[in-house]
């Protein structure tokens, strides 16, 4: 049985593969289309958006859904650092990297989606802030989170890379690492409060949609349900990344850590579902669950995917890696549908109005996902992100020492503080 003791880079695998070139080609196409959007505006062939459906894929999916999927950084982090679930420290780096990429690509999409981005500089001038606006809260918190705590949390693997690979900068890197350690508790405090605030405000956005958001989703508690969904989506995403690493690079899986992740996923999903039904029950809308045509079907699909997957994870069958992987994928799919529903699927903007994304919207949306994936793949191969055992590290060290003579990856004596 493998135990995850420390993060180990994926070694002996080329960074530049055929998949790499394919993604790069897609990214180039997507960036050209983005440039076209900047010149001609959002209308015409660029997007399927219209005055009634003023928000399209770029905001509703790349920002509102994918930052939910990238919530591992705070969802797993709170369990590890605040509730002292020590086993989870081993997967924190994966969680933090996925969060960073989801947030940064999401922010880039936001910048492309808004019509007058040059006015965004007001965000640094608090006297113009409209404190009643949920979007203001999101803008300030997301910017702050992505550029400060989340960024700082992702630095240690980079420092280590410099320490091992560039001995002449070693002193600087070690100094920075030490400085970061000094402020780390405050950094992680910020890294958890900010996402709790803006992930819930993402739900609060659609409260202003009023009764045009279907009653099964529209509730004063939409912010709470939305951030709670982000929590289990974060666990899904991290688990999927870990299991894919097993599939792609035959990385060993620590069953105990996975069991811990699954247990937490299951409890978050159970409490989320219970609260959601309680809310619908108290508002007296429980019959809508079965009698509202398409919306009932959508609601039941979400619930079945999420709750069914959680149930599978809680059984013995869920311990088999294949089943576990499928369960997390289904759970994430259900959660993503939930996060998309208030803005898109369950939002009747205006009688008769419809929205379907244009080809350009799809391509640009996928482009920014591809950028995230590409950076992820480079990062896990160059930096110590994915968890492994001490033995894995020693094996990696032997390999690297042959390739790069003079590199020191083992034999560090502890420094007394």
């Amino acid at each position, binding site marked *: 049985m493998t135990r995850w003791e420390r993060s180990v880079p994926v070694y002996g695998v080329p960074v530049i593969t055929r998949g790499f070139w394919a993604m790069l080609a897609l990214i180039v196409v997507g960036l050209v289309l983005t440039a076209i959007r900047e010149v001609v505006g959002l209308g015409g062939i660029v997007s399927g958006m219209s005055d009634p459906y003023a928000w399209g894929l770029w905001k509703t999916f790349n920002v509102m859904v994918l930052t939910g999927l990238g919530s591992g950084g705070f969802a797993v982090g709170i369990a590890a650092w605040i509730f002292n679930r020590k086993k989870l420290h081993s997967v924190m780096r994966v969680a933090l990297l996925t969060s960073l990429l989801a947030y940064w690509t999401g922010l880039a999409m936001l910048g492309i989606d808004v019509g007058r981005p040059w006015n965004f500089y*007001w965000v640094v001038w608090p006297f113009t802030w409209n404190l009643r606006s949920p979007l203001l809260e999101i803008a300030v918190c997301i910017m702050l989170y992505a550029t400060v705590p989340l960024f700082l949390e992702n630095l240690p693997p980079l420092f*280590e890379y410099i320490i091992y690979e560039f001995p002449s900068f070693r002193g600087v890197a070690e100094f920075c690492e030490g400085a970061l350690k000094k402020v780390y508790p405050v950094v992680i405090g910020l890294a958890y409060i900010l996402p709790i605030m803006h992930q819930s405000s993402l739900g609060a956005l659609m409260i202003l949609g009023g009764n045009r958001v279907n009653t099964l989703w529209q509730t004063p508690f939409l912010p709470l349900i939305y951030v709670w969904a982000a929590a289990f989506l974060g666990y899904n995403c991290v688990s999927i990344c870990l299991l894919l690493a097993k599939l792609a690079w035959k990385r060993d899986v620590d069953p105990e850590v996975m069991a811990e992740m699954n247990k937490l996923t299951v409890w978050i999903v159970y409490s989320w579902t219970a609260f959601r039904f309680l809310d619908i029950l108290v508002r007296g809308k429980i019959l809508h669950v079965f009698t509202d045509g398409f919306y009932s079907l959508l609601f039941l699909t979400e619930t079945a995917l999420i709750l069914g997957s959680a149930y599978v994870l809680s059984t013995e069958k869920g311990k088999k890696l294949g089943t576990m992987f499928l369960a997390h994928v289904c759970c994430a799919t259900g959660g993503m549908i939930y996060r998309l529903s208030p803005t898109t699927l369950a939002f009747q903007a205006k009688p008769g109005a419809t929205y379907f994304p244009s080809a350009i919207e799809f391509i640009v949306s996928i482009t920014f996902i591809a950028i995230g994936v590409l950076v992820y793949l480079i990062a896990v191969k160059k930096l110590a992100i994915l968890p492994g055992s001490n033995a894995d590290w020693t094996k990696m060290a032997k390999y690297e020492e042959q390739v790069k003579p003079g590199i020191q990856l083992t034999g560090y004596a502890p420094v007394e*503080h």
Partner: protein
Amino acid sequence: MAMTRREAFKNLAKGSLPILAAGCVSAGLPEVAHAEEENVAPKGALGLLYDATKCVGCKSCMVKCSEYNDLQPDTRQDGIHQAPPALNYFTKNIIKLYRTADGSDHSYFKQQCMHCIDPSCVTACMFGGLRKDVDTGVVWWLGSKCVGCRYCEVACGFHIPAFTWDCFNPKIVKCELCRDHIAKGGKQPGCTEVCPTNAVIYGKREDLLKEAKSRIAANPGKYFEQRVYGEHEAGGTQVLYLSRVGFDKIGLPDIGEASIPHGLHYSHMLYKWMALPLALFAGMVFFAGKNFKDHSHHLVEDQKKTGLRPQL
């Protein structure tokens, strides 16, 4: 007394924190006060009263609206006629016709911004790109504060704000009650100025509401539900409607009496004084600090055993 640089920074931080905190709180105060006294129109609230029974559908108001607001004619349908299909970035004001399939019943109706007393779009707007005039209650757009996020369009239950989709420098276009024209000395908005039947009239909201109610009293049974649309809808609007046919038939949604931003009441309570977020933050830093110490200790122990550099 001599102070080390470190102490100086410490004291600076101690001194500036309360000031920062006070700044945040005082910036929040007027907003909180505003939230509590919502649904009261400003004293000088201006508006329109549109009586659908008087409208003959001549569309003069649309022409005058374009003139006063410098709007290009929307000829996109056939290249010849000014024929906007709905409110859009060429069109701040539109006359439409409701007609049953067999022609047994019909009514013209006018659409433009309702100038809500508690506007959802103004609540939505991040930096005050859409703002409600303190004196007149007119909701207007300030381009220098608009990011083009289009949250106003999502938030507006009346489907009013329009976005210039085909432009790299887009704008939000909506009725501003001819605010600029009146500032230049105009007496009233274009639509009320030209209306040949006085189907739409301009004035203070309270006067218009009185006028509407007196029309209902003078013509019992004439008006739908004997009431004024906009008196209570969405927390009250400054544009008021009278109609013979059902309001839902003439594009006025059944939006309820609570103002839409009122739905954010609970969320705003959680953020009051920033107390809850700050308390949560403090609690988390405390536990994180405690657990971080344990974890660092564990890392050093680990290094003694393995000789591998500890990872944060």
